């Protein structure tokens, strides 16, 4: 294994795929010489040049639409929406065009388009730069949704997304970009649609999405060391398509479930996971306790650190939920 930042893992994926396939090109706001808003793309413009790493005007509608039109006509573009909050600007292209084109036209065409964006709070960016809106895309059939929660997946899932012949939206966690972690040596691709059991346990399952994976892992190790509580951590990795079997099997084993996701709690993806767990054929009969959700509280993201920290999920709030479910 090698130690890299999450951002470096993303950059490696892009560089490797661009070297592999000349039809892969990257467009977005400030992706060129500036190196991306978060600085993680530095070096790509220098290596691949202006034609393949191209700055756009601040025009999210045109960015997504250009990616779509290019994907329909022989390219394999990767477009960037700097913050997932800006999906609001590109709404029609995402929801009515990208998501619909293959199905609506009777499967005539493949749409090898990757849309990278960022989610997550924690840097006092307030209501329009901090949201986690992945569930909105999951609600509209036609776009695969990827939420890499580890360094390894930040690279492997992005490579799979680029190679996929369907539209894939990758939500990277902006607070993880500068954090260090480990990835395998050499080339690897992580298949879409397969959840990972990050840690096995018998007492309770945490389904953890995006940055909640590391938080949940840290909590699980602590509770194991101090109290002998063994938590199983399941990382769905891909929300569409969702590997519900791995989640259901885990809950059948432990009988207790906490879902940790930085999306808002109302109509969030956590609610979807619970629907799958309690439906006929799921794990309802195996549950020994009600289920808890840890998400972003249902207000817009506030600016001031004490306010924001209260609203977004944290290890402490996951622990609180775990203790409630264990103590039921």
């Amino acid at each position, binding site marked *: 294994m090698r130690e890299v930042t999450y951002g470096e893992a993303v950059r490696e994926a892009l560089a490797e795929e661009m070297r592999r396939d000349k*039809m892969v*090109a990257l467009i977005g706001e400030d992706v060129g010489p500036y190196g991306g808003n978060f600085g993680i793309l530095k070096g790509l413009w220098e290596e691949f040049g202006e*034609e393949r790493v*191209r700055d*756009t*005007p601040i*025009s999210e*509608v*045109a960015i*997504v*639409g*250009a*990616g*779509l*039109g*290019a*994907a*329909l*006509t*022989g*390219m394999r*573009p990767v477009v960037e929406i700097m913050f997932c909050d800006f999906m609001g600007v590109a709404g*029609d*292209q995402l929801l*009515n*065009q990208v998501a*619909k*084109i*293959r*199905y*609506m*036209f*009777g*499967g*005539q*065409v*493949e749409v090898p388009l990757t849309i990278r964006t960022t989610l997550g709070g924690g840097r006092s960016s307030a209501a329009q730069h901090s949201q986690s809106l992945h569930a909105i895309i999951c609600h509209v*059939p*036609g776009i*695969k949704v990827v939420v890499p929660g580890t360094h390894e997946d930040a690279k492997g899932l992005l490579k799979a997304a680029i190679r*996929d*012949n*369907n539209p894939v939206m990758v939500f990277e966690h902006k607070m993880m970009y500068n954090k260090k972690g480990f990835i395998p040596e050499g080339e690897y691709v992580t298949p879409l649609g397969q959840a990972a059991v990050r840690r096995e346990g018998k007492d309770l399952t945490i389904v953890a999405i995006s940055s909640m994976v590391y938080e949940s892992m840290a909590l699980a190790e602590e509770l194991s060391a101090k109290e002998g509580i063994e938590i199983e951590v399941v990382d769905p990795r891909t929300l569409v398509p969702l590997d519900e079997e791995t989640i259901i099997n885990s809950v059948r084993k432990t009988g207790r479930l906490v879902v940790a996701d930085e999306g808002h709690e109302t109509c969030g993806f956590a609610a979807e996971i619970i629907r799958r767990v309690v439906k006929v054929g799921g794990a309802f009969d195996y549950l020994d306790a009600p289920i808890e959700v840890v998400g972003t509280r249902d207000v817009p993201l506030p600016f001031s650190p004490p306010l924001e920290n209260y609203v977004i999920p944290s290890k402490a709030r996951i622990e609180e939920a775990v203790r409630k479910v264990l103590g039921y």
Partner: protein
Amino acid sequence: MELSKEKKLWMLERMLQIRRFEEQVYDCFLKNKIPGFAHLYIGEEAVAVGACANLREDDFITSTHRGHGHLLAKGADPDRAMAEIFGRRTGYCLGRGGTMHIADFSLGILGANGIVGGGLPISVGAGWSAKYRGTDQVTVCFFGDGASNQGAFHESVNLASVWNLPVIFVCENNQFGISVHQSRHQKIKDVAVRAKAYDIPGVIVDGMDVLAVYEACREAVERARQGGGPTIVECKTYRFMGHHVGDPGTVYRDKEEVEAWKEKCPIKCFADKLIAEGVMTAAEFEALDKRVTEQMLAAVKFAEESPWPEPEEAMEGLYV
């Protein structure tokens, strides 16, 4: 440049195909043979045909909710188009798309679009792709005066301009955004003046004159092919019918106005001209019309006799 007789007759036949196709759609709709609704292209045929007469099979178009004319002009099969409008499995999109969502990617038809302005950004992507892949393919983006007020219009034309992409933005100014006259939806009279804001050429032509549209688009297409970037070609036109079948189109326009525009019928005017010039005889025109009408009746028959999709087929084909 003088056009060949064949080219002129091709234009006339294509316009006639669109007219007769749309008349069948109208008729079948009133007979409750067609689900949903339908926006007819009758009156605007010169725009689609004049523009597409400049295109190769490997060039691209993006279309609109009023898209039947664009598709046929680019060479789509009337049988499969009609079957799609009828919701049958033999349709272009296996019955999943319907009237507003027909495409034929093998002919570069990147799809009609139910969202006003929705095709504009996609056309820019096709233009980017052609340039990136090093081909000389061009993309014609059809849109209306109504779409020119969408934010997507500004973002798309600006991007095509700053990246110098081979896209021809063909504005079908039929003067109405559904029921709202242009004078009530924008202060300008000519959409093409907006070209100035993007530092690209903008031209205005009589959209009822297929040769005028052809000529304006020819220049724009040649420029785009040679790396000269995008153009806005505004075609002044008129839809003879309402916004969709069921809208008589009388609430928001005078009968006299509609009749005056019908006098400029692009098919009749062009046929008269070709007859006067001796390119064809009146009898030859009648024979052509008869043949095209029969072709469209056959398309209706094909559609009607085609099977409906099985309900479970709804769940197929979302992903590769």
